[in-house]
Structure formats: C-alpha cells, structure tokens
C-alpha cells in the first residue's frame, strides 16, 4: 500500500499523484489528511482501493467506474455522483446529493446523509445507516435506496422506478409514492445486504415504490398533477 500525504498540496496535485500510482499498478492507496479538499479521485476507471484518512469535500470519487473507496471521515456534496461501478464506505456523514444519478455500484454511509440522497439514481445501491435529509430518492429511476433511520420531507418524490426501504419514519412522503410492507424476498434482501456491511436489519422497514400515476399525462388525475406539473 502506498501513501499520499495531502499536506500543502492542491486537489490537482493529489489527483496527479493518485493517477501516477494507479498507472504504476499500485492496488491500494492511503490518502492522509485530505482536509475536505474537493474533487479528489474523480473520474477514475481502475479497480484501485482508496482509503481517505479524514474528511473529503465535494464530489469525491465522482464519475468513477471501478474503484473501492473508504472514507474514514465525512464527505461533502455529490459523493460518488454518476458512479458507473465501484464501492464507497463512509465512516461518517455525507452532505447533499450523495450517490446522485449513479448508474451502478454501492455506497454505504454509516452516518447521516444531507438532502437529496440518491437523487435521480439510475441503478446501484445506496445505504444510509442513519437519517436522511429532504427529498431523498427524488426522481429516482432505478436502483435501491435503503435508509435505516428517519427521513425528512418529500421522501421518494416523483420516482420513475427503483425501490426505497425506510427503517424509521418519514416526515412526509413525496408525490406518487406507494408504501407497502416488505415481503419475504424483500426481508431476505435487506438482511443479506445490510449484514455484509455490519448493519442490523432488525428494523420495521417499509417499502416505497412509484405509484406510477405520474408516468403519463392523464387529465383525470389533476389532484396529483396540480402538485407537480
């Protein structure tokens, strides 16, 4: 394992070092003292293991396809946005828009998430062990969002497809949501998935999916449309 000490370096310099080490075939890189710098490790396409010892700023690991990222700290906005594939483990909290528009991969947040977690997800899996801010899962298209704690307002608003599991309570649900009790396959999926990240599945999960009443324009449903047109 190689180490990069961020002291006195810009995000640009750190990213150049990361890329050089990857090019040399380094399989595991430890990044020390990132001090919430923005845009670290973005656009990486190699299956490298990256460990950030400290908090990271906006867009850490944005647009990656393959890396495994561990953050021993918290993360700013847009963590892992547009990820194609890869893994994020965050031993802390995340800011707004975690896993925004991801198409694949897995993100596990052991703390809380800010607003719009899992917004416009197009695949992949986002697990938030703690609570989520407003508009989690907004306009989700595919994929799975598991919130073990509580959610603020407008959870799962205007989803196209995908599944949200909520272990706590939602202050309010978004437009066109359909809530049900998880069936046995859902329960098994939750246990199996959460267990591998050391998270208890022993919570009263609810399953939330799209009501599909917003899929197509229907004049008969103006009661919904007046909220969202």
């Amino acid at each position: 394992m190689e180490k990069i000490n961020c002291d006195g370096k810009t995000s640009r310099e750190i990213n150049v070092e990361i890329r050089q080490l990857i090019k040399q075939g380094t399989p595991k890189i430890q990044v020390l003292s990132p001090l919430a710098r923005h845009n670290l490790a973005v656009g990486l396409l190699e299956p490298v293991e990256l460990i950030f010892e400290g908090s990271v700023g906006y867009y850490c690991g944005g647009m990656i396809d393959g890396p495994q990222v561990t953050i021993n700290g918290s993360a700013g906005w847009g963590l892992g946005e547009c990820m194609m594939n890869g893994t994020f483990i965050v031993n802390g909290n995340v800011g707004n828009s975690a896993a925004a528009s991801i198409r694949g991969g897995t993100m596990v947040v052991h703390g809380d998430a800010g607003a719009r977690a899992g917004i416009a997800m197009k695949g992949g899996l986002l697990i938030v062990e703690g609570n989520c801010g407003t508009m989690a899962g907004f306009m989700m298209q595919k994929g799975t969002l598991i919130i073990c704690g509580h959610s603020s307002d407008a959870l799962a608003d205007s989803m196209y497809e995908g599944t949200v599991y909520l272990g706590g309570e939602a202050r309010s649900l978004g437009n066109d949501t359909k809530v049900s009790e998880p069936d046995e396959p859902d329960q098994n999926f939750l246990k199996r998935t959460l267990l591998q990240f050391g998270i208890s599945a022993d919570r009263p999960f609810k399953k939330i999916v799209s009501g599909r009443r917003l899929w197509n324009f229907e004049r008969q449903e103006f009661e919904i449309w007046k909220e969202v047109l």
Partner: protein
Amino acid sequence: MEGSSVAEKAVLRHSRIWRPEIIEDIQAKAELGRYRFRGFSALLSRALPSFDDLTFIPCTLTRIPLEGYREKCSTKTVLGTRFARKPIELDIPIMVTGMSFGALSYNAKVALARAANRTGTSTTTGDGGMLPAERENSKTLIYEVLPSRYGFNIHHMKMANAIELTVGQGAKPGTGGVLLGAKVSEQISKTRDLPPGVDQRSPCRHPDWMGPDDMVIKIEELREATDWQVPIFVKMGATRVFDDVKLAAKAGADVVVVDGMEGGTGASPDVLLDHTGIPTLAAVCEARAALEDIGLYGQVQLIIAGGIRSGADAAKALSLGADAVYLGTATLIALNCNKPIYVEDYHKLGTEPYACHHCHTGRCPVGITTQDPELVARLEINAATDRVVNLFNALCAEIQMLARSCGKADVHDLEPEDLRALTLEASMIAGVPLVGTNKVFGGGPGWKRAT
C-alpha cells in the same frame, strides 16, 4: 330591404384580442386540462427584435472592401483558449447545437455528425447521452452534462473534445426537457434508464449542485476528470444574461453559450416557448457587455444560439461579439423538416408543411424527430448529410461575403461599427447608430475589442 342590403355588404370582423388561434388554444386547453406541448420554436404573432433589425454598412470610400468573390477571408474558429490544454479548432464559426438521440432519430443524428465532420465543425450530444455512431462520425464532439444526466457515461465524456455543462436552454429556460412517451422507445428507455413509453420530464436543476458557487467546484471536477485537457462550455437560456454570463465566466468556463428565446426544442410546454427568455439579438449584446465588464471578453469565447437562420444572422451575431453560432432548427430544416413531401402524414397530424411543429408527437413525417423505424427510414443519411453540408457551406460563404464587403479578411474581425440599426429599439439594444442619425439611442453594450 334595407336590412338585407346591409347584410350583403357585411364583412367578417375578427377581434385582434380573440384571434382564431387564441380561441383554438382556449378550447384545446378546455379539453386537455393541462398545458399544451409542442416542438419547434416560438410561434408568437408579435415580431421580436431580431437580427433583421440591423443592416451592414459595407465599405465605400471611408473603408476599402476586399474582393468579394476572390480574396481570402478566414473562418477559422478557436474555442476554449482560457484553461484547456486542447482548445477546439474549427474551420467555420457555425456549429451544431445539442439535440438528443431521442428527440432526433438515429439517421438525423448521424447525418448531422457527418455533415459537421465534412465541414470541419462540431456536433453536440444532447440530453440523452452519447450515441456511439455520433462519436464515430464526428471529429469534434461536445459532450453535454445536463441536469438529467440521462445516459451519462464517464467513458463517453472522456472521449469528447469539449464538455458542455448545460444550465438551461433558450426554448424553455428554467425548465427541463420533455420527451413524451411516444418517443421513449425500447432503445431510448435503455439509454436513459427509464421505463419504455413513459412521459419523460427532465429536471432543470443539476442533482449535485445548485448555484454559481457550487458550479465553480463542479467545473473543476469536470476538468479533473478529463485531466484539464478539453474546454468546458457553460450553456444557458437567455434570461438575466448580463449577470448570468459573468457568473459562468467567473466560475471558470472556457466558453459561454447563450441560447435566445427563438431557440428550438423537440418538446416543450407551449407557454414557455412563447413567453420566456429574451431574444437572441438582445442576448448577444448583453453577453458581450458582461464579458467586457469583467475584463474577459476575448479570453472567454462566446457562442450564440437561438433562431440563427442565415449567414446574415450569423455575421451579425459575430459582429456584435459572438465567436461562433450554434445551429439547431436550421439544420433540421436542411434535413427536410417542414418540406412538402409525405404531405398526407402532415395532414394526419392536423398540420401541413411549413407550419409543422409536431416534433413532440414522434410522428415526424420526414423521419427527423421520430423513433418509428418506418418514418426514420424516410431520412436517407447520405443525402441528408449532403444537404446540411451544403447549408453550412452556403451560410459560411454568406458570412464571408458580408465580411469582405466590410473590408475584413477574417470573419471574426466583424464589429458593431459595421452595423446600423433599422429600428429605434434595435439601436437601443445593440448600441449601434440608428440609420440616418449617426446616433446611438440607449447605452448599448459598448464595443471595445480585446487586445
């Protein structure tokens, strides 16, 4: 007898308030219970201030013209010189704007890409990701990063020659795009990760940033992901242009694209097309003034879009400060949009050639804005490519013709001094003298050239 004589002489009197199209619109909404959709461009009955309100004043004795049919007049256009290691170099200042695969057919996208390639210019992906065939056929491809992120793929972005961070578009600034279910085919649904047949409404806010402060970091992220090699464009609909352009430039854009309210679309709420944004003429003037105000005119390049129809429009935009123009609707018209062929299919849509704005239905009679294989086959790619090539060549020649007449050996040397306003409002907007007065009415944008 007297009464019948009056009746015989009576003429129909239409209200200017309750015109036939107004009555039709009210009755249509009374049926629909929602706003109306359509494609194409603004259909306002009111004439907008436009490039038609300006005229060139070529050389006579005070200046010496170039030989119009002979002498060289450069059209080379370089974009992205501020931060990118590899700025875009184009042979002409006319580019193909972003129109998605989904809004457009495969054949239309490929024809535009090939035409751009043959004329030494660029094409742009649109809201739906990159069509591989578009990359294969384009030497210079601009990859759009839109709020929806439909089809976003980092591998595709890394293949691009420039990135366009889209904040909005002229047809519907402040609102996202629409692709109605008829056009969300199996293929389109896969590329966009949507259910087939769903009425797709794109968001207008990016999922991972909000305002200009965040955009600074977002632009840096795009640069880091592409190793600072390619230019970053920021595209916006024309609204508060003077302030928005400054914010985009300040945030680190290499190139700012401003799309006026005449800009086209494959589908939009009708009310937005006609009642939002400012005209392209005003947009270019405000944009230039904005860049001058912060000392970045000439460092940040400016692309103007929205209803550019001719070499004259393009030349006037260049004169007022643009480095290049985007063409969208005009290229589709070159492809065959609104051409009087397959007329019976226009009639099935309740319209006719020259008045069709039914792109949103997915039943485009000429195979451009459709995903129906039978309709798509009506657009023969090679012939369509030739027509767009011819259009670009013609427009480029028109720009050169005007530039030479103004004594310019480079189309980018055209300047506001080469123009006069035909209307008082154009003089006030563009800051060029009203014809016959030698006087600028209103402050105008100023027209210092960067050195």
